[in-house]
């Protein structure tokens, strides 16, 4: 029985950690894209805008009803063909193989997170009573100002725990980027483990790295939640 190779484990930990920036980059980009789009979609769904509402519903149902790994494979199979067609039509000298896989990752995770966040925002906006908007209108605020100053701050309090969940899930899901051969935390550690077959050590390292990142994110959200709640108490 071989014991754990602690020396390798120590080295691989930093190899895994060096993949963290890519993971965080994908997370941040996906969130930056999907928060405004998701908010817009949730308004579409709440208002029941004729055609858009049905399209949103199908889109959300598909994203939530199929495994993420299949969505990744789908994008990875469809996108190069579309991109190549686009490049050919613009007579670009760029080859399809020059496209960094991180662009596909941005696309997949944004599309995925939009669907998740639409539902989060929708349920959060539902908790704010309609009279709040009417009251804001009656004192002369525009709809935009009413949303910005009255509705969103209140909805954010209920949305925050779900938002935290969505963010940690997103971070965890970036581990599937190995399918795009993107060198993030999981793939880096796995590749480092290949020569010596030290997979157990590598996976313990990966586990630790994700544990640290996710715990930090959760801690940050908890702090922010406390601040928002305190703010709400004073304003109420």
């Amino acid at each position, binding site marked *: 029985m071989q014991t754990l190779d602690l020396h390798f484990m120590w080295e691989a930990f930093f190899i895994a950690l060096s993949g963290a920036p890519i993971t965080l980059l994908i997370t941040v980009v996906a969130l930056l894209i999907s928060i405004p789009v998701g908010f817009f979609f949730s308004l579409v769904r709440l208002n029941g805008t004729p055609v858009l509402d049905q399209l949103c519903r199908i889109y959300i149902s598909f994203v939530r009803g*199929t495994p993420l*790994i*299949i969505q990744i494979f789908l994008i990875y*199979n469809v996108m190069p063909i579309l991109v190549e067609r686009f490049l050919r039509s613009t007579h670009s000298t760029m080859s399809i193989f020059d496209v960094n896989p991180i662009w596909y990752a941005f696309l997949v995770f944004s599309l995925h997170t939009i669907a998740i966040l639409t539902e989060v925002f929708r349920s959060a906006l539902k908790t704010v009573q309609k009279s709040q908007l009417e009251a804001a209108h009656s004192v002369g605020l525009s709809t935009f100002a009413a949303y910005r100053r009255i509705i969103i701050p209140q909805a954010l309090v209920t949305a925050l725990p779900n938002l935290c969940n969505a963010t940690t899930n997103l971070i965890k899901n970036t581990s*599937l980027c190995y399918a795009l051969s993107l060198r993030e935390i999981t793939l880096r550690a796995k590749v480092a483990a290949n020569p010596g077959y030290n997979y157990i050590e590598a996976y*313990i390292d990966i*586990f630790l790295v994700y544990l640290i990142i996710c715990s930090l994110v959760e801690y940050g959200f908890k702090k922010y939640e406390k601040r928002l709640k305190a703010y709400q108490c004073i304003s109420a």
Partner: protein
Amino acid sequence: MLKFDFFYLLEQIPKLVPYLDVTFLVLILTLFFGTILGFVLAGWKLGKSLILRKLAYTFTTAMRCTPSIVLLFLVYYGLPALASIFAFDLNDLSKIFFVVTAFSLSFGNVMSEIIRSSYLAVERGQYEAAVSVGLTRFDAFRRIILPQASVVALPNIINSILTLLKEGSLAYTIGLIDVMGKANLLIAMNYEAHALETLLALSFIYWSISIIIENANGLLEQKLSKGRTFIKTV
């Protein structure tokens, strides 16, 4: 050029559907063992022992931060190594064993949180009232608390079953041949020629199962919500 063959897509579906039995076997076994684990963990979390409570919460934190694919590989590589210390040989075991173990751990964790929160959602007065009319503690739990708590828990349970179904597709990474694994084999057999059609067929299979489960959930909720007035919804 993008050549999309719709008939090829239709042909793939009957090739994939027979492999759903492995997918569902994993799902059902995981539900069974995960629920047992969930009850144990929830009991620890609500119990009096400080050590067990800390242990259960630490487990929850760790599980929440672990991607399922990492957990799957940790179990797949770690468990045989761990067993070999005690001179057990797990290397010949079926891959289903590792898949079920890994997903039971994460599903059990989710279940423990659902059970805990739905147990707390039932008012304490209900239990006290039940005991005061002469029910034993076990009867009070079985006849009064459990029926009410399960109504609260149901939507969350269905939701996590859906998540489990989707995450179960990752089992192909350790070589389990379920629907996902079979689709991968089909793609590899055709030298990636019709990957898109096969993947779409696969996603339609998953999508329809999800829609069925979701609709069943809606119907069940309607039926069970008769008892809603008794439940304090926080």
